[in-house]
């Protein structure tokens, strides 16, 4: 009991460090901490995908295999989400059921510098409203914007963390969130629903 209490109070990084040193059983703690989050991320991002469990399992397998490459000076959460992002995007590419967003060389969002899209805190009530509406309209939003909205609203990541997960400039995160919200507003106004 005391042992499990101790594990619960440990940070992800502390646990990972122990696993790297050879305490492999502790990996179950990482799985139990991240499984619900990664499953939610996958379900919302790949809503047409049936084998979400297999994908989440793939993510954990990759995480375990590559754990020694994790830089202990960095945060663990963006690292595991980056692996999940790559796995999910590859799954999307294989399925070809969605418009593949550009993770390739030329993505105009990342090409030019953007200004005026600094991170700003949405009101809690606004966030809840957006989350609720987002749930209904996720399938109508391009994968490029859908993913970033999921990370921002559902996974509660800040711009810096999202930038690390997606490997894009922070200013681009702001631009994509804004465009994603604009798209959502457009969809809502088409349904005669107005929000500010």
């Amino acid at each position, binding site marked *: 009991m005391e042992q499990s209490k101790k594990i619960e109070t440990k940070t992800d990084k502390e646990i990972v460090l122990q696993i790297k040193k050879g305490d492999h059983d502790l990996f179950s703690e990482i799985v139990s901490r991240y499984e619900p989050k990664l499953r939610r991320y996958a379900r919302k991002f790949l809503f047409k995908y049936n084998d979400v469990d297999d994908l*989440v399992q793939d993510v954990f397998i990759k995480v*375990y*295999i590559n754990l020694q490459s994790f830089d202990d000076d960095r945060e663990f959460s963006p690292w595991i989400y980056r692996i999940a992002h790559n796995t999910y995007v590859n799954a999307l590419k294989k399925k070809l059921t969605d418009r593949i967003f550009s993770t390739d060389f*030329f993505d105009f969002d990342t090409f*030019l*510098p953007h200004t005026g899209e600094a991170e700003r805190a949405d009101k809690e009530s606004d966030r809840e409203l957006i989350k609720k509406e987002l749930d209904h309209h996720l399938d109508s939003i391009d994968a490029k914007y859908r993913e970033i909205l999921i990370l921002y609203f559902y996974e509660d990541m800040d711009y810096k963390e999202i930038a690390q997960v997606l490997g894009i*400039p*922070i200013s681009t995160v702001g631009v994509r969130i804004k465009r994603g919200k604009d798209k959502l507003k457009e969809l809502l106004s088409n349904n005669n629903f107005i929000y500010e």
Partner: protein
Amino acid sequence: MSNLNEENSIQGKVLTAIKEGKLVMKPKWHFVLKTVMHILVAVILFFALIYLISFIGLVAREKELFKLLNLNPRELYLLMTSIPWIIVILSIFLLFTFYKLVKEYAFIYKKPLVYSLSGIIFLVVLIGAIIQILDVNFRFARFGEGPRVPVLGPMHKYYRGDMDKRPMMKFRDDRRGMMPPRELESPFLK
């Protein structure tokens, strides 16, 4: 029943695979070696890029291409046919390959593409210029000139040699009066 559920859960499956030795963590040295190889390839690409740019500079100097920079259609035509376009395209390709290789690193992807690409181009031009200043005799750009050097030897002969000997030039009526190569020091190029 509960045990069965646990075994079938992701957690159960992954842990079982770890315990049975089916899932093995890659050792640290694997990633260190991978990073070293990555850096090595990036450095080789970078110097290959500088080499090609220096080579273009050398061709431009030997063929006196800068003197052809006017609006005379004939000289403009000569200029266009004398520029080593394949090497220019190859340099651009190397530049983008190099960018793709270093894009994984935070100090590159954190910047908008236009900044990071400009930074790389600036670095290439800067190092190229330094080499140009220090290497007066173009020894770096001349690397590989020789009849027995694969790929580079024919490349030097083709672009720096007599233009009339180029296969494409054989069928041109106006090849008379085509610039002869500027004093070629290497007999191999003649």
